[in-house]
């Protein structure tokens, strides 16, 4: 019984935190594949966006530099999709809270960061699959990335890191939301302006002047420009956007992760 009162060393705390995050990640991924209907429809939505913009709106949108709209579009759709994917962090956490699972976790001797860490890691893994799926769909509708495979992979990493940072903000929303339905509704006022008042679907020049300032500098646009620079290049070659997106991601993570962790610790 004497070992009960001893505190574990820092090294073993970190090791256990990683193990706990792994356990929760596995649980979340298992839950995802156990509901194939949800998996199917969450994959369907971005595909419909691709088809909608590629074949319906695309013809009306002029892209500078004479490159095909589909090449302009795909990096935008990628980033929009992984932002929406990040919102599932809010919904998942709110659901776990609502069902009482988090109550059980909080009475277990597990790491205090594992519930949030495991949720965001699982959602990140999901976003990896989404990017693979979208790449295939993109190639099927005429997306022809320029540049090396390494550039393409770097583009994917840039947006995955961005989505990971956003997830901690959505985690905060999920912990504050009264129900999972409310959590979902609460993500829209953030997601819509960020993804649509951006350079994801239209060139900056086509926006009215008063929106251009916001649309040019807000983090989703910066991320889209970074991905476009790496995957499409040409007139969109923009290395400073890559650094800009990484800076946004790290900055957001440093602010949002402690906020979410604090909200988790203060649950009542």
């Amino acid at each position, binding site marked *: 019984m004497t070992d*009960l009162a001893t*505190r574990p060393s820092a090294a073993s705390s970190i090791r256990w935190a990683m193990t706990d995050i792994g356990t929760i990640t596995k*649980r979340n991924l298992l839950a995802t594949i156990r509901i194939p209907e949800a998996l199917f429809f969450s994959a369907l939505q971005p595909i419909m966006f691709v088809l909608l913009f590629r074949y319906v709106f695309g013809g009306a949108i002029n892209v500078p530099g004479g490159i095909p709209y589909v090449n302009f579009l795909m990096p935008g759709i990628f980033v929009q999709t992984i932002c929406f994917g990040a919102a599932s962090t809010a919904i998942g956490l709110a659901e776990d809270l609502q069902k009482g699972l988090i*109550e059980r976790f909080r*009475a*277990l*001797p597990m790491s205090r960061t594992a519930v949030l860490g495991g949720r965001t890691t699982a959602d990140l893994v999901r976003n990896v699959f989404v990017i693979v799926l979208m790449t295939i769909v993109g190639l099927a509708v005429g997306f022809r990335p320029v540049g090396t495979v390494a550039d393409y992979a770097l583009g994917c990493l840039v947006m995955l890191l961005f989505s990971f940072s956003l997830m901690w903000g959505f985690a905060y929303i999920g912990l504050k939301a009264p129900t999972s339905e409310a959590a979902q509704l609460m993500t829209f006022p953030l997601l819509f302006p960020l993804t649509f008042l951006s350079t994801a679907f239209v060139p900056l020049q086509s926006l009215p002047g008063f929106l251009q300032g916001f649309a040019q500098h807000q983090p989703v646009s910066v991320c889209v420009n970074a991905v476009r620079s790496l995957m499409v290049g040409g007139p969109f070659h923009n290395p400073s956007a890559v650094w800009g997106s990484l800076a946004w991601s790290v900055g957001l993570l440093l602010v949002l992760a402690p906020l979410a962790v604090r909200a988790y610790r203060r649950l009542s």
Partner: protein
Amino acid sequence: MSSQIAVEANGLSKTFRNGEVKALDGFDLEVPRGQVVGLLGPNGAGKTTAVRILSTILQPDAGSATILGLDVVKQATQVRRIIGLAGQYATVDENLTGYENLTMVGRLCHLSKPEVRTRATDLLDQFGLADAGGRPVKTYSGGMRRRLDLAASLVTAPPVLFLDEPTTGLDPQSRLALWDVIDALVSSGTTVLLTTQYLEEADRLAKDIVVIDHGRVIAKGTPAELKADLGSTVLELTLESAESAASAAASLADLSTKAPHVDGPTVGLTVDAGPSVAAEALRRIDAAGFDLIGLNLHEPSLDDVFLALTGRKAEVDTDAIAQTSGRKGRRTKESS
């Protein structure tokens, strides 16, 4: 650590909604090692809040509590290693199988993988879930979920177990089955703090009962002591008709400490010295020529105790509680 008290709480207080709702107001508790203590109280009395503080989920505004000598606030992580929590709100993941739920909890309690596998299989066996272990929990019945929930709280074989209304919303058969499981745990030496709003459950399982209302302890003792405190025995005599019952009641009135209660052909008397008064009552009935059909002399039930202590019936509408599960339900409950 050598203390004989497994769970101790001193002056716990907790308010919600910026002080509007006082869930606990100077709550004290002592649970001796290896015993079952029943925390009995109506909805909103503070039972769940007390358990959530004792199981480190919630921090008290004032007061302190220890589990086997470890402080629930300052040594929360160590406390979490020696407690198990099951009940209405600590729950299981319905997308995972029963086996996966148990192994997940085992891993989160930092048991080794082989240990976790053995333990999960044993517990599924022990709780009659061996066949269902490979199925997602969403296919389980309410009784099966509760058993799995209880099994999940036992993965580490904790010396102290909190059961928060373990049978609320269960059908009678599942309730009896769960009682047997809890009995077995207690005989193996586990200390149990059980909250319930069913008097029958507290009477059946707990050695000591603590009655709580408005966040405070209003009475405690063994079920027999609590009933004895009420100070009287109930004598029920059943005659051949309601008319004879009414006239018998009049001739027996001086034997009862309260006005006799007539219900159809049955006369109920509240008496101090049970057997001798019963003999006197029988003599009078015989002399008056009534036919006696039945006689029942019994101690007051916990229901009577509860009614006397809180001024209201204990068993409230539990269907409504079962329906408002989840977070919304929890908040409503604590504020009620």
